[in-house]
């Protein structure tokens, strides 16, 4: 077997495994874990479009998750509009909001953008937590919203976990495809160039701020879709769960630890960081509250110091080494 065929075989096997997982993983709580894992991978891939490729650090992306969840839910509960359409509406609103936030801040130094997005995210959480009604729409403040049960594809509700699994998997695949495609065309080159050396990029015809705003719009749109997905998966959500610093930060951390600005980084980051944080929370918090966050903090620091380009780098190197090793020893 040559190196290329082995590489291809392994990749096809991986894709097949991922697509057939619900056939063997029948326990719904395990499937739920997998769904949330892909959910994070999808969110981080969306974040990566602006946080990775455009070289800025958005720290308020949970705001767009919230916009997505609330928009589609309000449209469904109050006006009977299918969440599938509400999802798109939420995405459009999130994109518009992202542009409004991005236009003044993306021209400035990176720190302004990071802090402004963070403040916007917090501001939105405070607003939602203090709003019981918005016109005729019920938000229920900190108590959140319950979505009435009515299982059907049209209502984006399923008895089983498996459909959710496939939906988020397809969303992730599309997000990865968009990222991959963008990296090969003009916008990808311009985002990279503008992120790394804005002045040089401008001399080469790149309106850096404009491309960053475009990236922001796409990223916010995609992020909002995940909000609707979460709402339909949980059928109950409240501000603390989908808005606020913790979630915004977690997305950024997964990207940075996985490797920002790369295709595989967000997925690898979610695959590794999510289980670590989940299991350490479950098993360590009973022993010593706070210990899991100390470990999390240590991981952040160590990765940033020793692997600033994320764990995708050594993992890719290891994979290549593995391919070489196996093919050489065989032939």
């Amino acid at each position, binding site marked *: 077997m040559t190196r290329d065929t082995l590489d291809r075989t392994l990749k096809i096997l991986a894709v097949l495994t991922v697509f057939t997982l619900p056939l063997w993983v029948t326990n719904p709580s395990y499937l739920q874990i997998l769904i949330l894992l892909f959910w994070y991978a999808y969110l981080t891939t969306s974040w990566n479009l602006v946080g990775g490729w455009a070289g800025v650090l958005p720290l308020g992306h949970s705001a767009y998750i919230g916009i997505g969840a609330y928009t589609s839910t309000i449209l469904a509960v109050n006006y009977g509009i299918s969440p599938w359409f509400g999802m798109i509406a939420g995405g459009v609103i999130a994109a518009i909001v992202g542009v409004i936030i991005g236009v003044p801040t993306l021209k*400035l*130094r990176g*720190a*302004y953008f990071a802090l402004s997005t963070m403040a916007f995210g917090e501001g939105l959480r*405070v607003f939602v937590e203090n709003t019981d009604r918005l016109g005729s729409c019920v938000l229920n403040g900190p108590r959140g919203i319950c979505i009435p049960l009515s299982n059907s594809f049209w209502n984006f509700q399923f008895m089983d976990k498996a459909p959710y699994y496939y939906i988020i998997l397809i969303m992730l695949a599309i997000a990865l495809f968009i990222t991959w495609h963008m990296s090969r065309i003009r916008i990808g080159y311009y985002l990279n160039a503008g992120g790394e050396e804005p002045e040089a990029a401008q001399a080469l015809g790149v309106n850096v701020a404009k491309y960053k705003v475009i990236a922001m719009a796409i990223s916010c749109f995609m992020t909002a879709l995940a909000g609707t997905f979460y709402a339909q998966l949980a059928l109950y959500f409240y501000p603390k769960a989908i808005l606020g610093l913790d979630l915004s930060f977690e997305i950024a951390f997964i990207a940075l630890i996985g490797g920002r600005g790369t295709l595989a980084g967000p997925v690898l980051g979610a695959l590794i960081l999510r289980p670590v944080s989940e299991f350490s929370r479950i098993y360590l918090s009973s022993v010593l*509250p706070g210990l899991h966050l100390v470990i*999390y*903090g240590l991981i952040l620091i160590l990765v940033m*110091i020793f692997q600033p380009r994320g764990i995708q780098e050594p993992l890719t190197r290891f994979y290549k080494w593995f391919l070489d090793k196996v093919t050489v020893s065989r032939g």
Partner: protein
Amino acid sequence: MDTILQGIVNGTLIGSIYGLAALGLTLIFGVIKVINFAHGSCLMVGMYAAYWAVKLLGIHPYLAMVIVVPALFFFGYLMQDIVIKPVLKAQSDVREPTEVIIVTTGVWYILDNVTLMIFGAEYRVIQTSISGKIFELGDLIISKPKFYGFIATIVVSLALVWFLKYTKMGKSIRAASLDREAASLMGINQYRVYNIAFGIGTAIMGVVGCALIPFYYVFPTVGVIFDVKCFIIVVLGGLGSIPGALIGGVIVGLIESMGAQFMTSTWTELIVYVVFLAVLFVKPAGLFGSKLDW
């Protein structure tokens, strides 16, 4: 009328203390071009240090500054030297290394949760000789500890400006803030300068900690409240601007205290965000910020 005047006085006093907290953050940004996300946690450390100094040694909280401020200086100095320097070195050609935000967030998580593990989650409050004491100026009631905090802000700010303008170290710090490369060519050891600037920024949080302890609760995540406030204040005032930090602090303090007379505190919090976003649109670089560096 009286309540409005009272609100202005209260807002200015507490706001100046916020401003002092933001001063450390803006100094660090001005020099090193990084945002210290562990800034609030440094304040938390300062507050615990002050708390235990008062509790164990039985000294006056302001006297505790003699111990707490140098301790926080070294704490900040070492944090920059051990944790942040390696990242800066690896990213030496990047103008504004955002990785530092992540590293300092790691420090934030560690500090808050180690504190939680050691001292537990309970809110601690200490009765000091000036807790709850007031001045009365006609109908006006002025909280003594807040007033002294205001004085501390003025003293520390003036001292900082003097230090930056007239001492050799201060001049080195300003030179390094303008141009990393040029400063190191001129024989300034930039990383030592960074350590000291970071130390000073953190030491200021020691002052804030001692000023807060007579009237504020101490708990492991108290820093988070101040973190977000400080971020808003420095962006409002303009990153790297000393007057911007102080005035931004007073603005936030005024909104909180004036708003408190008309609505619940969560809504005043929201007004702070709205004002913040409004300033961002009208004057994106902040009230005193320039697009260039100081």
